């Protein structure tokens, strides 16, 4: 029996009923990794060049085999002793290399942390271990999570999309999405600041959940935008996503933004009926803005028909099951999502980046220096890629008193207006009284490697359909809903009011059940060997 493409809940059942050991599951998963992943990302390594490089996934920055064996053996020992190892017993998973794990390198995909070994473990990683899951490795990402294609990582080769290895995986949790899609672990932990779980999940045909801000602790997460960052799971199905959220959600005395709101039973919530739920569609999410670098102007187009139709078909299925579809839902401040994000995320990023100095930890320049300032300059100059440099410079420009044009205050007000849009449509006493909004997750399917990278504005607009969720702090769940004409996955997302993850999972699960016999559900990434 091969377990690498099985759902996490099935693997956990097989392990708990001792039909297979956690160590055997681990060995099989490592076999899959060796068969499809190719070279792991390394700092300053050559970009993909060989035929094998071009046809493998490169999801990992580090395989943690020894650590994983220790965890798997512990699960098996517990079972032998008659103890319950937890709901994710023996389930192999990966963690975006932005989460600290004690004694294991944590790099954020940056040269500046390439030699950093974390002295403590992130809450989410501790909780996955407590649930019996087995961490098989760290996966690649955009440097410090800054991007939407995972191309900005200092660790090369960058990840390639399992559905078409000439395409990007999306980002920034690109290694997470690629690993899950390719059967390299059933679950991955990612983070979502402007769409960084949902975007790559959509590009790689997986499920991805951005929880409500504060639903999941940020302790042990290397910060990007502290008022926006949300850890969350990616998985191949909705049930596994619910199981993972159940494991990681909840208050944490080490993070005072982790909300003290009871965690519901997501598996029970997920199976409830969707009849009578009010699901909205908004025209604002079927238009896309893009940056024309030749004219230096922002332009607007309707979203591609193939994406629009895929999302509308989801609405059709839900209506068949008794949901009420509400059209023309107004969210007038959606178009300000990216401009607002450019300001808030850069100001917060620059503040967080200034801690990397070559003094306390991480990379230090090997060039001579005379004083602290020169040490900073040479260390940051050599070890930050272009994205951290851009974000530091923009963050300082937007927040320093000497250049202040009021952008930051204006962006905080715009964020309040975006939040107010969502409050209004989810208001139980309001005109729309929605339970959830249904939208496309991304403006396009996975684009070609090198096709957008380098144009920082066009890349940022790839997050235009996900970013307002982060501004508002609400949850969002992306699910795969079909494929385009090039065989690339299409994602649609459900957005809901604060702490409505259970309801979003219910909608995702309903769609999954209704479409389980559709042909597209049987497709598998072509690089997975046919006989497996």
């Amino acid at each position, binding site marked *: 029996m091969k377990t690498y493409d099985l759902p996490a809940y099935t693997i956990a059942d097989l392990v708990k009923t001792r039909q297979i050991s956690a160590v055997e599951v681990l060995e099989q998963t490592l076999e899959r990794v060796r068969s499809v992943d190719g070279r792991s990302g390394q700092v300053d390594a050559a970009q993909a060049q060989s035929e094998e490089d071009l046809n493998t996934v490169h999801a990992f920055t580090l395989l943690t085999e020894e650590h994983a064996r220790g965890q798997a053996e512990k699960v098996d020992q517990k079972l032998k002793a008659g103890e319950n190892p937890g709901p994710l017993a023996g389930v192999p998973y990966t963690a975006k290399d932005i989460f600290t794990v004690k004694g294991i390198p944590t790099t954020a995909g940056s040269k500046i942390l390439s030699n950093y070994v974390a002295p403590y473990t992130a809450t989410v990683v501790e909780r996955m271990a407590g649930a019996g899951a087995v961490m098989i490795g760290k996966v690649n990402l955009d440097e410090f999570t800054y991007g939407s294609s995972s191309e900005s990582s200092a660790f090369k080769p960058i990840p390639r999309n399992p559905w078409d290895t000439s395409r990007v995986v999306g980002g920034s949790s690109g290694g997470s999405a690629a690993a899950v899609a390719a059967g390299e672990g059933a679950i991955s932990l990612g983070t979502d600041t402007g769409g960084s779980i949902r975007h790559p999940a959509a590009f790689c045909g997986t499920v991805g959940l951005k929880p409500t801000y*504060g639903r999941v602790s940020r302790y042990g997460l290397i910060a990007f935008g502290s*008022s926006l960052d949300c850890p969350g799971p990616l998985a191949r199905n909705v049930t596994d996503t619910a199981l993972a959220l159940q494991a990681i959600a909840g208050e944490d*005395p080490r993070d005072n933004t*982790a909300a003290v709101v009871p965690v519901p039973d997501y598996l029970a919530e997920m199976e409830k009926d969707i009849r009578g739920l009010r699901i909205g569609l908004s025209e604002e999410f079927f238009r896309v803005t893009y940056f024309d670098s030749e004219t*230096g102007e922002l332009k607007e187009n309707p979203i591609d028909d193939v994406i629009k139709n895929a999302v509308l078909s989801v609405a059709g299925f839900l209506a068949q099951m008794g949901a009420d579809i509400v059209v023309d839902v107004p969210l007038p401040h959606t178009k300000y999502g990216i401009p607002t994000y*450019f300001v808030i995320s850069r100001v917060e990023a620059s503040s967080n980046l200034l801690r990397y100095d070559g003094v*306390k930890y991480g990379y230090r320049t090997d060039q001579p220096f005379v004083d602290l300032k020169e040490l900073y300059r040479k260390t940051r100059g050599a070890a930050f890629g272009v994205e951290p*440099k851009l974000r*530091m410079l923009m963050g300082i420009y937007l927040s320093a008193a000497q250049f202040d044009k009021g952008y930051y205050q204006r962006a905080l007000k*715009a964020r309040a207006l975006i939040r107010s849009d969502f409050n209004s449509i989810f208001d139980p006493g309001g005109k729309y009284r929605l339970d959830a909004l249904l939208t496309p997750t991304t403006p396009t399917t996975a684009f070609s490697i090198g096709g957008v990278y380098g144009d920082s504005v066009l890349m940022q607009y790839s997050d235009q359909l996900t970013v307002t969720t982060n501004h508002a702090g609400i949850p969002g769940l992306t699910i795969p809903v079909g494929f385009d004409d090039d065989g690339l996955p299409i994602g649609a997302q459900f957005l809901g009011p604060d702490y409505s993850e259970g309801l979003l999972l219910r909608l995702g699960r309903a769609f999954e059940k209704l479409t389980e016999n559709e042909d597209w559900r049987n497709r598998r990434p072509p690089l997975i060997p046919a006989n497996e």
Partner: protein
Amino acid sequence: MTDKISSDVFNRLVDLASLELQEGEGEYLRKELNNQMVSIEVLESIPIDAETGTAAHGLPYTDKNSPVPREDISRQDPHREDILKQAPELEDGYIVVPDISHEELE
């Protein structure tokens, strides 16, 4: 289109960020920053009235979801040795900080 971030402003930002740029990097970074300003300028067109507040988080923190602040009690960090091991330069259990540049104020 006039660049919002001129060469002089850009050089000042680079100095404030304490960044040494690689050959040819400055031109690319300044172009991208100015392109990003095209998007940021869109914020000028939002009708914002005096009543509109600011939001530090999208999600409000109230008595219902905020944890009670921890007691203000100092504790020995259990990871002291692991943390010190990460420092590039140590002396007698202290992290060595290079000389801090300074200038006399007039």
